């Protein structure tokens, strides 16, 4: 095969892999045109944010083989970073002349704590919302992966770490707002654009971040490093004996995943207009695992759609009178069914159907060259 042919083959593969991603993003961007309801748009934006969170888990779980049960920790840290910055923007409107956020005044705090000070700068807060989760993940990953901790132990350690941080946040009420979280926030404002939670601007901000996260994650999985990370998932020690420092690759994908989760957390604060300890709670963290499994953990688009669909269903079921009591049962049953019958989730199902269609087209004589050969694993 000449290199010219293989180049065009590579491009064809790339297009075939990118196509589902771009189609989904196009639908996301087009939705406000069809959906003329600000309340509903806010709700959809919320599901999209959870979709970004699930993409981040798909990256570490589906591609890296690292089942992080504490994915919501990174999400929560990002959420608090944004909330701290937006809270400081309310001074002095909501507070007295002392220049402190209202809950600190109620808790008799005299001076702004040192770690709050830099959050007066919005660019710092936005950077911190991704870098802090990434650094925490890298530090945790350093201990776990250097020590060759694998499998279920990684899940237990990540879950436990999240619970500890959650408890610290609840406990330190005077600095974190405790159980109530951080509420009564100012609106996010970037370059003169105000992001009202119920406005179109916020929706498009979220949609843009969906596209960005999908593209970044896709670019990583398509890179050589992404390939090596997948090889580590399949056979860790084999990779080691080719001369790769396996722990560094695991730390990298773990931190990248945390940074994307942090971005989702920041957006969640903008969409929900508060930050709460429940954002790094066990329930959300485990839900993400369910969404990811239902959508298909080895497909970025699948994980994203899994979150949007299932979280959307959760929302609809929990609000309908008929399923008010039983919706968790319905969700549990769905999870069990998917794990039993669709180990690759909805994305795997889509792949099977797609291949079947292509085969039928081939059989009936029409040419669908190239497309049928791709694995379609975006």
């Amino acid at each position: 095969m000449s290199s010219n042919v293989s180049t065009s083959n590579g491009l064809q593969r790339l297009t075939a892999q990118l196509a589902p991603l771009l189609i989904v993003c196009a639908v996301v961007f087009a939705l406000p045109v069809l959906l003329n309801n600000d309340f509903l748009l806010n709700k959809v934006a919320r599901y999209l944010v959870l979709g970004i969170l699930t993409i981040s888990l798909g990256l570490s779980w589906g591609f890296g083989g690292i089942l992080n049960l504490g994915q919501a920790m990174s999400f929560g840290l990002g959420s608090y970073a944004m909330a701290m910055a937006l809270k400081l923007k309310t001074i002095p409107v909501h507070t007295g002349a002392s220049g402190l956020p209202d809950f600190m005044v109620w808790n008799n705090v005299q001076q702004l704590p040192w770690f709050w000070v830099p959050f007066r700068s919005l660019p710092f807060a936005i950077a911190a919302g991704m870098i802090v989760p990434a650094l925490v993940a890298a530090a945790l990953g350093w201990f776990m992966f250097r020590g060759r901790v694998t499998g279920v132990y990684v899940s237990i350690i990540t879950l436990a770490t999240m619970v500890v941080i959650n408890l610290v946040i609840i406990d330190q009420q005077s600095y974190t707002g405790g159980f109530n979280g951080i509420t009564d926030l100012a609106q996010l404002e970037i370059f003169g654009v105000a992001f009202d939670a119920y406005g179109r601007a916020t929706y498009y901000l979220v949609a843009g971040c969906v596209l960005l996260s999908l593209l970044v994650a896709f670019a990583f999985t398509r890179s050589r490093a992404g390939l090596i990370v997948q090889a580590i998932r399949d056979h860790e020690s084999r990779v080691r004996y080719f001369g790769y420092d396996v722990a560094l690759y695991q730390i990298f994908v773990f931190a990248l995943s945390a940074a994307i989760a942090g971005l989702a957390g920041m957006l969640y604060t903008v969409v929900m207009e508060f930050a709460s300890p429940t954002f790094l709670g066990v329930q959300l963290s485990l839900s993400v695992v369910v969404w990811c499994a239902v959508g298909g953990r080895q497909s970025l688009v699948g994980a994203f759609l899994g979150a949007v669909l299932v979280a959307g269903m959760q929302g609809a079921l929990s609000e309908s009178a008929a399923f008010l009591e039983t919706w968790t049962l319905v969700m549990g049953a769905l999870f069990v069914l998917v794990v039993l019958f669709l180990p690759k989730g909805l994305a795997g199902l889509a792949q099977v159907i797609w291949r079947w269609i292509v085969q039928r087209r081939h059989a009936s004589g029409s040419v669908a060259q190239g497309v049928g050969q791709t694995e379609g694993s975006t």
Partner: protein
Amino acid sequence: MTAHLDLHDVSVSFNGFKAINGLNMSVGKGELRCLIGPNGAGKTTALDIICGKVKPSGGTVTFAGTALQDLEEYEIARAGVGRKFQVPSVFRELAVSENLEVARARRTSVIGNLRWDIRNAGREHVERLAELVGLTEQLDRPAAYLSHGQTQWLEIGMLVAQDAELILMDEPTAGMTAQETRKTAELFARLKGKHTLIVVEHDMGFVKAIGDVISVMHMGQMLAEGTAAEVEAHPEVRRAYLGSGGISHA
């Protein structure tokens, strides 16, 4: 000939059991050395020590002037040591071509590997490798779909892709048909000279076909070294294999 790899007085024990006890072995550059011995002789453990999977409790392992015994596995691999495992170890969910790509570890740093191969520059090399190990047809299929023999071939191909100076093969022909074994012997003959090889094998026909010098291990020690005829005639070797029908049936 100066030794390319030198094991000096190497010992290792598992919970008090001395799996390797004062092992000495030196292999010259470009040599193909066969390592044989009865079950439990410590052949696989000897390979484990060289590639860093097991840390020796005593002795030194020197490869091309570098002391290996205190290095991490990936550092030993970077020093030029490749290893094929007894149980075929490939990346089952990746395509055959991707398996070979990962094995071609020219760059090993994370940041250095954050690159796309849009032009598919490695493709030609991968295709040549696939041809070498007879997997051209399977190039784009996941490795999980390969037969046992093909999986063995894939791992051998991955070691060729890695292009290590020293290649350690643990029972490369296990589960292969007679024809596949013959092809493997041809491939090894081609690798010899350019690479230094240590092959652990049970199949004496294969060993005689490929090996110049045969090392016989027994009870964690080196028992004898020499050509096939020499070791077969060696009285201690005959005693070690006593009851198992002689060396040719081991």
